[in-house]
């Protein structure tokens, strides 16, 4: 589904991604871990098409297309979803209006008619229930005044509405309380099918207790320096990153 080859990217003239190689197939869950500032969010943003980053080299193929050629909105409509580490607030724009526009853009791209107000509300109600989302949140402005945890839940709620093929969740577990973490993880699991894939960026094992990864990668200093199975995450939890850092710095 996604093949990243030797991807290099910089921001403000500083090289952050220094040759990323990663292959993600349908049905898989990949966890990406790594110390602060190693480039995890940068990778997520580059895949989603944020314009701050300059691509220095390499290629990204998504479903057979050159992903880097597509505009961010077309990437989204093609099924790439990013759950933001820091979701932004859009004052004055009700969540429900925002989501309706989003869902209908996705439908238009697929050649489907827009949902009627009734159909949309029904869909929204179902997804809200699935994530135990406070029903009042969707009437408020996008993320405005949401608590840290509410923002993260709201990201997964949007994911549930859009049902992406490739979901990239950037530290969605950070800021969630214990119950919310379980609910969000259950949501992610429920959305999993044989046809879609998930990339989880996380610092903690506890998310991976719920959403079991097929692969765990360690990103350090702009490169994937170690990959393994789900046990790698446990090892990291125990030993920290130093043993990997030391190995790769030499």
């Amino acid at each position, binding site marked *: 589904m996604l093949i990243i080859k030797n991807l290099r990217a910089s921001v403000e003239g500083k090289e952050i991604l220094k040759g990323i190689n990663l292959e993600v197939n349908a049905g898989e869950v990949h966890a990406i871990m790594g110390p602060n500032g190693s480039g995890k969010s940068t990778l997520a943003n580059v895949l*989603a*098409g*944020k*314009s*701050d980053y300059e691509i220095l080299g390499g290629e990204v193929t998504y479903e057979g297309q050159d992903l880097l050629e597509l*505009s*961010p*909105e077309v*990437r*989204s*409509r093609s099924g790439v*979803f*990013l759950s*933001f580490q820091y*979701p*932004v*607030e*859009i*004052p*004055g*724009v009700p969540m429900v*209006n*925002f*989501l309706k*526009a*989003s869902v209908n*853009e*996705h439908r238009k*791209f697929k050649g489907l008619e827009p949902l009627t107000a009734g159909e949309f509300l029904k869909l929204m109600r179902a997804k809200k229930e699935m994530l135990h989302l406070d029903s009042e949140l969707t009437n408020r*402005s*996008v993320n405005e005044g949401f608590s840290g945890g509410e923002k993260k839940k709201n990201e997964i709620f*949007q994911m549930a509405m*859009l049902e992406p093929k490739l979901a990239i969740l950037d530290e969605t577990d950070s800021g969630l309380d214990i119950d919310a973490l379980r609910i969000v993880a259950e949501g992610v699991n429920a959305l999993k099918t044989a046809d879609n894939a998930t990339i989880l960026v996380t610092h903690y094992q506890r998310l991976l207790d719920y959403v079991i990864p097929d692969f765990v990668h360690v990103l350090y200093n702009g490169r994937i320096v170690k990959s393994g199975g789900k046990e790698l995450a446990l090892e990291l939890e125990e030993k920290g990153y130093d043993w990997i850092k030391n190995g790769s710095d030499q």
Partner: protein
Amino acid sequence: MENQDKLLNDITTQEYQYGFVTDIDTDVIPKGLSEDVIRVISAKKNEPEFMLEFRLKAYRGWLKMESPKWAHLRIPPIDFQETIYYAAPRNQAKYQSLDEVDPELVETFKKLGIPIEEQKHLAGVAVDVVMDSVSVTTTFKKVLAEKGIIFCSFSDALLEHPELVRKYLGMSVPPTDNFFAALNSAVFSDGSFCYIPKGVRCPMELSTYFRINTAGTGQFERTLIIAEDDSYVSYLEGCTAPMRDENQLHAAVVEIIAMDRAEVKYSTVQNWYPGDKNGVGGIYNFVTKRGICKGESSKISWTQVETGSAITWKYPSCVLIGDNSVGEFNSVALTNHHQQADTGTKMIHIGKNTKSTITSKGISAGKSDNSYRGLVKVLPGATNARNYSQCDSLLLGSTCGAHTFPYIEVGNKSSIVEHEATTSKIGEDQIFYCNQRGISTEDAIGMIVNGYAREVLNKLPMEFAVEAQKLLAISLEGSVG
């Protein structure tokens, strides 16, 4: 950043939607201004003598005045002898029903999205339409008359209710108040008149649409609204004009008088032709709007959405004379390309416990310039006066300007005057967030701008809020790509 600038650059290619010309037979007088021209206008309209006197007094005052220079505007010299001061659709007889109206004209209003025909049935909005200089038709007149409400063209009011016009005309805006008000007082050709008797709540929104059609004409309309004790009315004004390369002048005056416990809501959606993306053509919009809260506990609120005109010079104001009276100003002013706007309000606190609130949302894009200018003045007798002002500016791109000129004069120690101002750039992160959910940049900007203006848009009557939202998005199209 570079990327966004490019984007903003491109949003400006959208064509003005209302730029058509209606081909109807028009009665125009030769261009130019003199006492004779004023006498001709007055005579054509069979006006009472006092009206001619009012006009001549204003004209003589105007001759001695100069165009104001204090606004943050580059105003090219205007040759007042090049303007036509009267143009009227010729077969403008007294229409009894819409069926008698020139079909071309009805077509025009359809293009403007005002199906007058439907509106006859659609309860809720009564429309007075002013095309060039003359009020074409007033719907719902009869329904309103049953309640004792007078809602008609200014010309009709002069013929049918001269004593009311005489009593109130110039009370809020004296004939020589300022350069443009004086010009309007001398040559105004038509407009709307509205009188709400004691204790009557007007059961529907009253609405006027103004349209400039004929080339080279200025439009000088005059609106007078009188709300007697314990009455209520909500009034909406909308405007459009054809696309033309030359600039056209619009100098209107609106006067409101609110008596004891009366409330008047005045909403404007101003969409005069703004000129093309290179700054050629467009309406010069110089407007004086003032309301007097004459009675105790009266309330006047101005809500405006300004997206049109090449130049806007406009300060809808409230004079709070009655004790406990309330003034409100809510504004969204959007400028794009080479548009310039200098707009704001004056709140003059005279009575005790008077309150005013100002909410101004400026949006600038392209190479435009957008200024808020406001005066809050508390006179010595205005014990416990309160004002709260919030003035926000939103910038799209880096080639536009936003300015805030708040003036505060407080003459009473017990009063509280608060002013807050913010300036922000439209967030690239916000746009990216929308993009990531499949929403195009153009739609994202429309959405973000509407969100930013929501507080003010919410003050508009429902049906016009929807229209205003679309207008904001359309006006920014082509400023991003």
